[in-house]
Structures are given as structure tokens and as C-alpha cells.
């Protein structure tokens, strides 16, 4: 679970770049807050460097690896959630619901492992999740969390697609986001049949949501213990 390589790298970089990083570090500490997400203020985005010495992982959006690591982080979160639900579903789940969560679990694991392999040595480490807010024995709590994760995932991929510069990775992200949208539709219908694409998620122009990484991580961060640093956004 620990990212010793990355932490070492972070420490090394810091010793060299300490002076330059002072202002940014302050902003990162200030932004860390409860969510565990450190966002670099826009005015500092030209700085080079990595984390702030507190550990955690860094998503550097300067290139496609940053975007893929961002997707990897979200897929880690989703996979961890579904593994927990699928292995011990709420008693009130129907057989069909168990089957859906079983399927989705393997989709998210496949996505997670795909990004890990595609990133190779550029991959961030494993994130430590924090699911304290989820009542895994309560069907409503589990479904509400699944809905939030899936809608957020769709919005995240939609918002990040434009950042990708490599055709193959853009296509891969496209291949995944529609599967996330299928998940979102199913979970929404389990909560309330017919809500698969209602006005909560699809606007009057017929468009699904698209969110930028800072907005997405501000929500997702509540479920992650590992600090996620964001640079060059």
C-alpha cells in the first residue's frame, strides 16, 4: 500500500527545490484540509516539482501520464468500493443486484489494472481508501455511493478527454467512459427506475456532465486517505 519509491523521489526533489517550493507548499498545506487533496493554486502552475514532503501521490497534468494516473486513481477508488460490496453485499440486495455488483467489480478491477500496466513505471502507488462514511450493510447507502462514484467517473472522463494528446489513450479513455456510463445508468435505475439519464446528470442540451480534475478530486478525496497532490493543471 505504501509508495516508498515515490516518497523517496519526492524527498529528493524537495531538497533541491525547497526554496522555490515555499509558497506552493503553503498553498498545498492550506488546501490539504479534510479531503486530503492538495491543489496547487493557478498562479503557481508554472513551478516544476513534485509533492510537498508529506508523502502521498502526485498527479502531474503536464502530459498524458498525469491524466492516466488521474484515471488510475479514480479506478482504484471504484475497484476498492465494489470489491468490498461484492464480497459482502447488503442483506437486502436481490440476486440481480448482487450479479450487477459482481460484474461491475471486475470491470473496475480491469480498468485499474489496465492503467497500472499502461503507465508502467510512471504509475502512482496504491491509494489507501477511507470508506468510513459508507454503511456497507445498508443497501441505500451502498447504492447512493455507487451512484455518486459512477456519475463522478463519467464527468471526470468527459472533462479530462480534451487533455489527452495520444490518440490511443484518448480512445482507451473513450472505451472506458461509456462502460462507466452504463454502470451509472444501471445503479440509478436500481435506486429509481427511469432515472438513468435524468436532469440531475443530463442538461437541457442533452449533455452529460464534464468536470475538471480539481472539482472531481474535491469530491473523490473524501474517500481517500492518501494525499493526492495536483500540479500543472
Amino acid at each position, binding site marked *: 500500500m505504501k509508495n516508498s519509491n515515490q516518497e523517496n523521489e519526492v524527498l529528493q526533489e524537495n531538497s533541491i527545490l525547497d526554496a522555490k517550493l515555499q509558497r506552493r507548499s503553503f498553498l498545498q498545506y492550506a488546501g490539504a484540509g479534510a479531503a486530503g487533496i492538495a491543489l496547487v493554486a493557478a498562479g503557481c502552475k508554472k513551478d516544476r516539482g513534485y509533492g510537498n514532503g508529506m508523502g502521498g501521490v502526485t498527479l502531474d497534468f503536464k502530459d498524458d501520464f498525469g491524466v492516466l494516473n488521474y484515471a488510475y486513481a479514480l479506478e482504484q477508488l471504484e475497484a476498492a468500493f465494489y470489491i468490498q460490496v461484492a464480497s459482502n453485499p447488503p442483506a437486502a440486495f436481490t440476486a440481480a443486484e448482487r450479479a450487477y455488483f459482481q460484474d461491475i467489480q471486475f470491470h473496475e478491477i480491469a*480498468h485499474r489494472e489496465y492503467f497500472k500496466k499502461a503507465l508502467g513505471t510512471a504509475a502512482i502507488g496504491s491509494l489507501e481508501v477511507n470508506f468510513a462514511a459508507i454503511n456497507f450493510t445498508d443497501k441505500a447507502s451502498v447504492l447512493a455511493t455507487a451512484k455518486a462514484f459512477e456519475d463522478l467517473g*463519467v464527468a471526470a472522463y468527459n472533462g479530462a478527454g480534451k487533455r489527452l494528446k495520444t*490518440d490511443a*489513450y484518448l480512445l482507451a479513455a*473513450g472505451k472506458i*467512459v*461509456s462502460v462507466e456510463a452504463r454502470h451509472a445508468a444501471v445503479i440509478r435505475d436500481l435506486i429509481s427506475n427511469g432515472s438513468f439519464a435524468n436532469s440531475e446528470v443530463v442538461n437541457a442540451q442533452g*449533455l452529460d456532465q*464534464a468536470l475538471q480534475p480539481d472539482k472531481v478530486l474535491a469530491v473523490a478525496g473524501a474517500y481517500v486517505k492518501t494525499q493526492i497532490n495536483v500540479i500543472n493543471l
Partner: protein
Amino acid sequence: MNIVNIIEEIEKVDGEIYERLSPRRAAMKDFFNVGKKVALSAVPLALGSMFNKAYGQTVPTAVVDVLNYALTLEYLEYHFYNHSILAAPGLLPAGAPLGAITTIRDHEKAHVDLLKGAVTAAGATPVEFAYTDFDFTAGNTFADVYTNYDTFLAVAQAFEDTGVRAYKGQAAVLKGLDYLTIALQIHSVEARHAAHIRSMRAARGASIKPWISLGAGGVANDTGIAAVDKVYAGENLDIQAPDITITGIATGVTKAAAVESFDEPLTKPAVLEIASLFIK
């Protein structure tokens, strides 16, 4: 309102967007104030013409082609659903089914309007299709499409899954552009539709999942309906870029799970071949 977000997003990569949109910020304020008053249906056009003014006549032909291609598919879907609601009495069960098809029809109409506005704003001529331009029986392959609810749903599923594949296939053409974000935002709505239609079919006894799975005997078509083989061609792929085999990538990831995890694209010629079966 969405339009403000779009401009804010552009500002991140183009710091001078406001200046491009108007030499005076005051004028931009006027625009937003007007935006609050104009009907929502007028927004795509207004938005499109604003971008057009900002960047000049620089929308590449390839992008316009994608917009018109997408518009063609949206017309196909819109007229298909609209006719089922307005002119096929007794086809759609009242309640949840009619509600879902109406929701989907409304989205397809919104997509038509949005894309029409975008093509016009790009200085090109949008394609146009009326209901009478289509033959939704595909030359009697689906002869009872408007009298048999199960046939209707099967065709609906084929359209939605094709739509998802079609948008995906054009992503590279739109790479890095605001048009890509819009296309992605439509693409995921089509995927939501596809999942729901598949669930509607499953509820009526079809052996089908909300996600495209591996067909019987490992074939790409998971519907068991041979007439739609071309809609699912290549969907049984389990190797993803650059060369990663998904089957067995982790414990429990079977070939079926690998296939379900990634929706595959379709090329424009492949999609048009499918669509042409329904265009007179």
C-alpha cells in the same frame, strides 16, 4: 449555466478568450445577461456563433464532417423514437417504458438541435432528415418494428450501441478541441440510453446485460440476433493499447469481463453501412 463553464474552461488554455469573444468585457457581461433570457433551444446556436466569431472561420472540414455525421445519427434516433411515441398506438406500454422512451427521444432532439447549431455556426450546411427519409423496418428485416414492442426495443438497442461506438470512433479527429468535450458529453448519454434499453429488454426475458458482453461461443454479438451482427463487429476484443491483454489481468477477470470493461469503436464507413439500411 453551462455556457459560462465552457468559457471558463477555455480560459484555462486560452487566457485571452474573453478578449477574443469581445474587445470589451462589458459586452461579454451583456452576452451573459442576454443568455439568461434567451430560450434554451437557442443556446447552441448562440454558443456556436460565439466560438465562430472568436476563432474565425477556422473549423476544419474534418470536424464539420464529424458534426454532420453525428447529426445524421441523431436524426435517425430522434425520428425512430419520436414516431414510436406519436404514431405507433399501443406500441409503448404506459408508465415507465413510455417515460423512458420519451426521455431518450428528448435527448436525441436536444442533440439534433445542438449539432445543427454547431454545423451552422461553423459556416457549413447541416444535413437534414425527416421521418419519411427513413425506413425503420430496414427493408422488412424488422417488419414489425412499430407493432411489436420487442422488435422495437431490439432495434433501439442496436441504434444506441451503434451511437456509442460511432462517437468513440471519431474521438481522434476532435482531439484537443472543445468539440471533443461536447462529443464526449453526448457519447456518455448514449451509453446511459443503451444500458437502459438493454435493461428494458432483460426485464422482458431477453438474455442481455446492460453492458456489451461476450456473445455465445465467444462471438462479438451478445444479442443473439444475427441481423445486428455488424453493430457488434469487433466488440469481443480483449487487447487494449498499447498491447495489454485484459483477460486474466487480475483474478476473476474472465474474457467476458474483459470484453464488458471496454466498449469498442466503429469506423465511419462501418457505421454508415449500418445506418444506410435504415435510410431510404
